[in-house]
């Protein structure tokens, strides 16, 4: 039937201290119209200055996306009149984007695919508008917030790949600490291009561009709706128009905004107030050599070196801090499998049960490693370990200390265990007799009594062995 081709344009707000071209604070949690300066309002005579931190962050993403990096920075003006844009133009990169021709690998159980990146460029955000019935409110806090825009080639062939790409990209962005990429705060926003073509056709179909889709769930729904809508058009011989559409999360549908997406002429030209700025190769080298190991590399390592499954590995890298906890624990000597089990199962369960985020915990690799070795050297049982784990996370204490405080050390001394065993045998003559009559499974009951008398502190394997010896002596 028809094959879908998807291209994504992703806008990401950078978490710099100040704005892209002005010294105003770049932050969300302030009252409206407070993070502003004369430059943000475009008062006559103001000039832009380029935020170095934003450039460095954008370069680190360009490196992570394997793009060719422009030897110099250069900006253009995109001219249009709208109240969210006090200058009457947006400073962006048209002529010479920061990075071109890159790719990002997406992984799944079956292997990996490359999603090709057309370009990545730097620009500034507009003010946010809140439309009321009779009037609109403009909040200039967002005007001038640094953005990077990542544009993929039209090369994504399924909605799952599109979502996988977005999740992988968001994770890379968070690992690089260039943005919190929180969808609910609009820190990552998408334009989605969707077209259909016949199975055997090499030529791409006419595309619809769905603007400003603000969550990955909406991206999924918008694509699915477009596939359905366009398929219906093709089947019924209705011409698909090249148009800009908007997505409504309320209905799950897309609606036509304007035909001919390139009808608006933004009159781009080179921004004359910012000279060309050389990007020194040493700066790129420096960013490369200081770059954190990214989630894909980690997943591959966990699978090949640590023999974990793809699912486990993916679970471990879902947040940088979780992955770091895992690697730290392994580096301290724990086996990857045990460390992974604790994190992917017990820890996840704990977070879900208490509705917590990982970064709200103060668990360290040292804690987890100590817990695992306490189990391995049989100081505590698996049952006890669960209790220690809860206290460890809840009170942020080292497991050794918890074990001491709770008097949890296991008794492995054979003489001591022998005392408990004989105490139980002495007070359960009937059961001993039953055993002797041949009903040997009564030993389970006796073992339970031994554990009970010892307060659960004895090593069950040793106790079992001693019980079977002592009962024979009766």
């Amino acid at each position, binding site marked *: 039937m028809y094959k879908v081709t998807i291209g994504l344009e992703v806008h990401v707000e950078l978490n710099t201290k100040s704005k892209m071209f002005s010294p105003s604070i770049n932050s969300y949690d302030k009252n409206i119209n407070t993070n502003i300066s004369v430059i943000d309002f475009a*008062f*006559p*005579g103001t000039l832009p200055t380029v935020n170095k931190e934003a450039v460095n962050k954008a370069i680190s993403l360009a490196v992570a996306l394997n793009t060719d990096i422009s030897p110099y920075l250069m900006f253009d003006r995109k*001219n249009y009149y709208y109240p969210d844009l006090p*200058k009457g133009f947006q400073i962006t990169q048209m002529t010479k984007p920061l990075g071109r021709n890159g790719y990002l690998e997406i992984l799944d159980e079956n292997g990996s695919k490359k999603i090709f990146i057309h370009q990545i460029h730097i620009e500034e955000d507009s003010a946010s508008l809140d439309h009321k019935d009779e009037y609109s409110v403009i909040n200039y806090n967002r005007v001038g917030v640094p953005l990077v825009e990542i544009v993929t080639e039209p090369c994504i062939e399924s909605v799952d790949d599109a979502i996988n790409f977005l999740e992988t990209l968001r994770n890379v962005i968070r690992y690089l600490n260039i943005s919190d990429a929180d969808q609910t705060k609009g820190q990552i926003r998408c334009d989605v291009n969707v077209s259909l073509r016949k199975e055997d056709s090499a030529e791409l179909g006419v595309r619809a561009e769905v603007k400003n889709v603000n969550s990955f769930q909406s991206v999924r729904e918008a694509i699915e709706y477009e596939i359905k809508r366009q398929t219906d058009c093709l089947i019924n011989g209705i011409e698909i128009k090249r148009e800009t559409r908007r997505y409504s999360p309320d209905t799950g549908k897309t609606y036509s905004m304007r035909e001919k997406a390139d009808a608006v002429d933004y009159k781009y030209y080179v921004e*004359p107030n910012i000279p060309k700025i050389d990007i020194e190769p040493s700066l790129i080298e420096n960013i490369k050599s200081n770059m954190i190991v990214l989630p894909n590399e980690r997943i591959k390592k966990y699978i090949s070196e640590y023999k974990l499954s793809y699912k486990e590995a993916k679970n471990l890298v879902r947040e940088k801090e979780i992955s770091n906890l895992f690697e730290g624990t392994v580096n301290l000597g724990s086996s990857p499998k045990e460390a992974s089990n604790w994190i992917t199962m017990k820890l996840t369960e704990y977070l879900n049960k208490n509705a917590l985020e990982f970064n709200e915990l103060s668990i360290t690799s040292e804690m987890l490693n100590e817990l695992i070795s306490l189990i391995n050297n049989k100081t505590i049982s698996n049952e006890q370990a669960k209790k220690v784990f809860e206290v460890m996370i809840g009170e942020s204490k080292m497991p050794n200390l918890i074990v001491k405080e709770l008097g949890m050390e296991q008794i492995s001394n054979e003489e001591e265990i022998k005392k408990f065993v004989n105490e139980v045998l002495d007070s359960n003559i009937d059961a001993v007799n039953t055993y002797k009559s041949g009903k040997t499974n009564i030993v389970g009951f006796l073992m339970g009594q031994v554990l009970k008398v010892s307060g659960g502190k004895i090593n069950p394997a040793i106790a079992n062995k001693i019980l079977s010896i002592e009962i024979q002596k009766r």
Partner: protein
Amino acid sequence: MVSNIIELKEKLNNEEDIKLLFNETIKKAKKCNEKYNAFVTITDSYEHIESDSILNGIPYSLKDNFSTEGILTTGSSNLLKSYVPAFDSTVYEKLKNAGAVLIGKTVLDELAMGGTGTTGHTGIVKNPCNESRMIGGSSSGSAASVAAGVVPFSIGSDTGDSVRKPASYSGIVGFKPTYGRISRYGLFNFASSLDHVGILSKTVTDAAIVTDILKGYDPKDMTSLKDDGIKYVNEINNDIEGKKLFYIKEIIDVETEDEDVKENIKLFYELINKIKNIGVTVEEVSFDKSLLNAILGSYYSISCAESTSNNSNLTGLPFGERIEGKDYKEIMINTRTKGFSELIKRRFVLGSYILKRENQEKLYLNALRVRRLIVEKMNELFNKYDGLILPSTGGIAPLFNGNDSDKLSNEYLLLENHMIIGNFGGYPSISIPYGKVNNMPVGVNITCGVMKDALTLNIAKKLEELIEYDGGEYHV
């Protein structure tokens, strides 16, 4: 008279003297305004920061397109007729900290677009040398306030020749240093790639003194230059014997019936001979006429394109004289329709047309190519010569009642507009008075290679001595 600033400075012994001078200057400014309409605002409060700079206590005027916190700054446009900025331009800040005393904000052609001094929202500016004549623009009021002897210097801006031409028309010095030498922060953007801060004064020495105070890198203006560490006033008296100047044949070879232009050219050749006599070489150089003919058109193309975008902030929404409407679009349209004069609107429409996708290649990018070719050729010439010398203008300041002042005679179009070359290349360029034609002053223009600010002022100072211009006094 070497320096009006130093002359004045010698009379200033204490704060009382400075205040007295301020009050006297304000009186003069008011008279100047009655006669020539030079000011949008005359300062009503005395503000002085004590400093040990040479400008301490010296009164000056500032073109009304430099942002001054708390002081009305209109750009001589109706749209900004009540705009009071919340920040200082770097130029104003530096002068304030140097102890200079602002006495007023001067009239310009609306938003610095124009060369006649007739389009400001407060009315036309008259030439103190002859009230029936224009002073040119766009730094019209700045030139008038210096020519009329109100202040020893004024700050203007120069995008095509907006400091040098009114200086030439009114018998004073107009200097714009290398692009980026002085920060543009707070100067209303007109055409950013061509905009320069310039100084108008009576003497070359004073232009050097003021430039020394204003120059230097400004972190708020990314196009500003790192300071060259040279104190220009210390270099202006250097010997210029052995220096090599050139003039461009195709610009000066004018076939005209205009007696003023003929007289001006005659004066120019007389000056060339005098210069040769002091051991300076002056050679005639030929320059591709078709390129020169493209200067004015390319200038309009580039400046209109940049200005339409630079002035897109003037919508009446965050600031400015808002004219209400039923929605934001109507507010913007009403504000811009009523706020700008016809001339400005024509330039914005042109700029917008030039930047349209389908026109950019032909109208905008070709203009940039012309600019580059001219600059490349000029740079070649500056490798061989120290500077370019030409009359600043063809004729003298035009009459108000003459023909449409926007239409210039084709006969001497090049001679009238060649100073744009200085903006194309960002070259330091100065106009100094060198004589009178028809009892009106005319200027000679020296332009040197980029960064050669000290040399430009040095040559100008030596020529000033050689010329011994006596314009008479036009004191109010």
